[in-house]
């Protein structure tokens, strides 16, 4: 996925521990990670120290970076900065073909054009050098 660097970050900033950090480091390299269990094959996101299906140790896996809107909302009222200056905006649950869902903003299209099933691709935005978070835009 494309990585956008050098933008001012005003949003709440992830403070990952050593275990979670690889997700954000990979995103800053343009890779979208999720977890897969080597024992039972279960896919999961957000990253955890245990497979929620069988209890084994999950491993990192790389996703294609594509997905589709499972459900979404257009936030039209939020009193907190920086979000209050960005209204209206879309927050979606994105279904990945790898079998996990990720929350994210859908940008690059009008909120009115977003629907359940809209096909998306991920891009990453660096929030500090070497660490990035995924966002979503229409599949090109």
């Amino acid at each position, binding site marked *: 996925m494309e990585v956008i660097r050098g933008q001012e970050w005003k949003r709440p900033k992830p403070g*990952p521990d050593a275990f979670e950090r690889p997700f954000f480091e990979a995103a800053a390299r343009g890779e979208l990670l999720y977890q897969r269990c080597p024992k039972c094959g279960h896919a999961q996101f957000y990253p955890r120290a245990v497979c929620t299906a069988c209890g084994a140790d999950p491993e990192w896996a790389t996703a294609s970076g594509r997905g589709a809107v499972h459900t979404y909302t257009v936030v*039209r009222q939020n009193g*907190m900065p920086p979000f209050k200056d960005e209204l209206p905006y879309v*927050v979606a649950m994105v279904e990945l073909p790898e079998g996990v*869902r*990720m929350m994210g903003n859908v940008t690059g299209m009008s909120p009115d054009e977003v629907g359940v099933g809209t096909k998306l691709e991920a891009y990453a935005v660096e929030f500090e050098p070497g660490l990035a978070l995924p966002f979503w835009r229409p599949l090109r």
Partner: protein
Amino acid sequence: MSARDPVIVGVGLSDYPVAPHLSTPQHHAQAMQRALADCGLPKRALDGYCSAGMGGAGAEAVAMAEYLGIDHRYIDSTMTGGSSFEFHVQHAAAALRQGLCETVLVTYGSNFLSARGRTLGTGGFAARGAHVHGADMFQAPYGLSLVGAYAMVARRHMHAYGTKPEHLAEIAVGVREFAGLNPLAMYRDPITVQDVLSSRMIADPLHKLDCCVVSDGGGAFVMTTAERARDLRQPAVRVLGAAGGQTHWNISQMPDFTRSAAAKCAPETFAQAGLTPADVDVIQFYDSFTITVLTLLEDCGFCPKGEGGPFVAEGHLRRGGRLPLNTDGGGLSSCHSGMRGVFLIIEAVRQLRGQAGAAQVPGAEVAMCAGSGGFLSGIGTVLLGKS
């Protein structure tokens, strides 16, 4: 009824919906005083205590037990969000049956509106400070509001089943009609489906009038055994069944955005009681949002999954309908001080005692409460019956 069957004997509400003169612990205290006065038990009779809160003073059961001066031998601080008090009923009922205690007090209180304004639904939830951790790292940076989380559930339900905004609006209209009968309710003027649909969109597809109020308020109830209840002031209300479960905690982890844990715990509750949905006369269901009620209705088995919209549109939940909903005016129009589950139990007790005044459902013998905590995350269902 056997001697140790659990019953509810006293209920009390603290001042609501706007009570700037009360702190959170003072809401707990006032509600306790009123619940004890209601049943006639002295405070020293209490040997069990359950409570939950949203942070700050009054959040911890042990701190509230100290403040209220309760010498307990059974304590439960289960915190599942707004449904905590339905879980407390389940746990206290088991404790009473086992003889772990004789008389349990459950309290909730919050000065939410006076202390924090109306920020809960549209900002406060997203404001987690400069740094976020754990699951929040994958949610908070995207600015989802609390209303927005429930809006995602409503959107998926509409997509999957063709549910319409008009269906959801009908729920708000019916609850408002009951609020008109409650002199203390925050909003009492009648509204129409069109009023809901033309109210401001907060997070599509949820309008302002699809959302509950933010208020101050607290509540308390006293549980004891059937044997102990015999010589008390009020008719005892029986706990016929109580069960709970969770499918997720964070909204991003909801496995099926149209289905809650009530799909599992409600059948268990009915089985304990030996009843079916057809036996229920009145329901007190968590109405943080209109979609919360619709989801719980389906999951509790009052209509098949996906048919909640048309079911509601038939008017069953209205005053005079066959399944009146939230006869105190609910969270949608009367009182929602952060965690509403305690009020569901209190209003169900009033109905089963025949003390609900103009909102009384004639001949009500069985009431169901369904509490929802988090984001349709932790669900507790309780069936109560007239003795």
